[in-house]
């Protein structure tokens, strides 16, 4: 018993666990009991139709103010995210969300924005060393094939779709989260941009980091190969499989899952 208990604890401390999560926007229930575990070191994909609740799940974990959690919990390495009220506390605790639609912040340069975010993670009174910061930033920009001139552009202002998504991955690389949720990162990308972004993500795969990749299409998963694929329908995970599930979904469509669910019900 003791051994099993300990094993469970270690597992808890090394994964992102979503338990019976229910949530509303206004009076409308969007999540109807989501259960999911992403162990560190793994990449899990959530696939689903538009409106299935997959982007909502991402926003709720990050603490978007429009949603109300009505039940369940999300444990990040054993720590309940919902004990942290503000989105920034969750972010500093190690949760990163790559946005489907990254926001523009006029007048704030990329370099200053990321610097403020890195600074926010340092202990009180400790000042980020500018030369170290820029060396790190440039190295990571080079890896993502982002030109140096980018640093002085305002965050996401006038960026192409591909530039926005690359900028999200750059921020992720700089902030080194424990868990990263990528929300429709492939949307708006042509094939070259998709490859660069995927390479960027793959370079960040590590035994110390878990990924939850939310996508509508299988295409992205050719480049970011997942350990597991979950299918979300109407606010629940209804099917889980390996990477081949994505191919099957692509071939047979989401209705196949729904029909299957109905058949077994």
């Amino acid at each position, binding site marked *: 018993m003791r051994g099993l208990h300990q094993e469970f604890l270690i597992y808890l401390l090394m994964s992102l666990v979503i338990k019976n999560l229910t949530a509303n926007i206004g009076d409308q229930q969007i999540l109807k009991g989501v259960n999911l575990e992403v162990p560190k070191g793994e990449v899990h994909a959530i696939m689903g139709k538009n409106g299935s609740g997959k982007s909502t799940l991402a926003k709720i974990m990050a*603490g978007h103010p429009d949603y109300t959690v009505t039940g369940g919990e999300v444990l990040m390495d054993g720590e309940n995210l919902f004990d942290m009220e*503000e*989105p*920034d506390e969750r972010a500093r605790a190690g949760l990163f969300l790559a946005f489907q639609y990254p*926001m523009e*912040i006029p*007048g704030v340069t990329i370099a200053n924005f*990321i610097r*403020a*975010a890195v600074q926010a993670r340092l202990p009180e009174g400790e000042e980020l060393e500018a030369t170290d910061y820029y060396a790190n930033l440039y190295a990571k920009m080079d890896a993502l094939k982002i030109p140096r001139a980018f640093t002085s552009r305002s965050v996401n202002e006038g960026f192409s779709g591909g530039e926005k998504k690359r900028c999200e991955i750059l921020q992720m690389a700089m902030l080194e989260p424990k868990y990263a949720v990528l929300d429709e990162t492939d949307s708006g990308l042509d094939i070259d941009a998709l490859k660069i972004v995927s390479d960027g993500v793959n370079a960040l795969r590590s035994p110390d980091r878990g990924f939850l990749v939310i996508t509508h299409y299988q295409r992205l998963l050719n480049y970011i190969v997942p350990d597991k694929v979950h299918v979300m329908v109407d606010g629940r995970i209804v099917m889980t499989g390996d990477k081949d599930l994505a191919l099957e979904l692509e071939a047979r469509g989401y209705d196949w899952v729904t029909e299957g669910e109905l058949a077994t019900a």
Partner: protein
Amino acid sequence: MPALEETEKPDLNLDRSVGDFSYDVQYQYDAGVGLTEATIDYICDVKNDPDWIREFRKDGLRKFLEKPMPTHWASHDLDNIVFDNIRYYLSQGTQPKRSWDDVPEEMKQTFERLGIPEQERKFLAGVEAQFDSEAAYSNIKAAVGEQGVIFVGSTEGLHKHPEIFRKWFGKVIPTGDNKFSALNSAVFSGGSFIYVPPGVKVKHPLQAYFRINAESFGQFERTLIIADEGSEVMYMEGCTAPKFETSTLHSAVVELVALKGAKIQYVTVQNWSPNVFNLVTKRGLAHEEAEIKWIDCNIGSRLTMKYPGVIMKGRKARGEVISIALASDGQHQDTGAKMIHAADETTSNIVSKSISIGSGIATYRGLVDIPPHRKGCKNNTECDALLINTHSRTDTYPAVVVRGNQNATQHEASVSKVSAEQIFYMQQRGLSEGEAMSLAVNGFVNDLVREFPMEYSVELKRLIDLEMEGSVG
């Protein structure tokens, strides 16, 4: 009050801690409370004013009493000023010291806490520090003085340099321009007098610091700057006051004269406490090919009404107003610019950015005047407003009067809001709500902040950070 929903907000004034202190000073001269002809005589006697100034002051008093309040809708708060409760002159003597060591202890401590002597050592060509009604300290670096530059208090200016002083004093802004310019003319004390000889380019800025220490006090400094032909000068002023329960009045008059080909830049960073009525008249007269630029940052105060202006009197003169206003909860920043094109081929540029937080109101009020017979005049006006909360408010009243068809004007205005989605995005990166707000606001004013001298832009960013940190619960 629309601010009621936000009662959990911390008191914004906490953040003005740097300037929020006062010393119990035993004033040697005190004109008492209220304003009568006897008050004027008292001030004249203490300051040993020449007869023409005594007459000038009494004319000011008459006009002040005659003139109505500026009556547009925004200024009803002006009715709450009780002129009979204000003290119009407080000082410990009229001779400013040339060395910080000689400045009376409380005043020296005040300016040290505000970092003035340190700034002087670091980057300034000269400093004047005014404590209530009179300059406590006034000094100009020897090298600058040797070029013939005069930088003294207005009292010293009128006594020692009457030939230049009297020629221009009250000429750019007539006493009866408005009720508050008349009030200033009646009781003015302190402020700077600057003269830059022909061709002299003053490399480093001259700075004045205006400090209100006493409660229920009115500060009425009077500044006159004359840049002779082909000369250049930058003047910077900073202002603070402690937070008192009763209202305090700051009503300055600033006149600039740029002779042929001269350049004057006038930079203001004011951080008044929220009990201060700040009613200032600022105007410059630009002769042929001269350039006058007002760079103005208004943070704090209860009500600020200030519209720096340039009268472009000579051909090819240029006028510019760059202004940032930040209106926090309960504050009203009514600011703008006036550009009078009184000669051909004159150009003016107005860029105004305002930020309204909580129940704060920011108003842009502008006037651009190009008469029908002028040729080749140009004006560009840009006003951008940023709203932080849903009940924040901004108003724009741009009056552009162009009669005739040989001139060009351009006007752009925008209103934007810091959206909840932007804040969420920044918070997701680990910034607190306050830090996120602050970053958004700094981004909004970023291009204008670059116009400020470096030392001031750093200070400005810090002030905005403080103001924004206090604006969220």
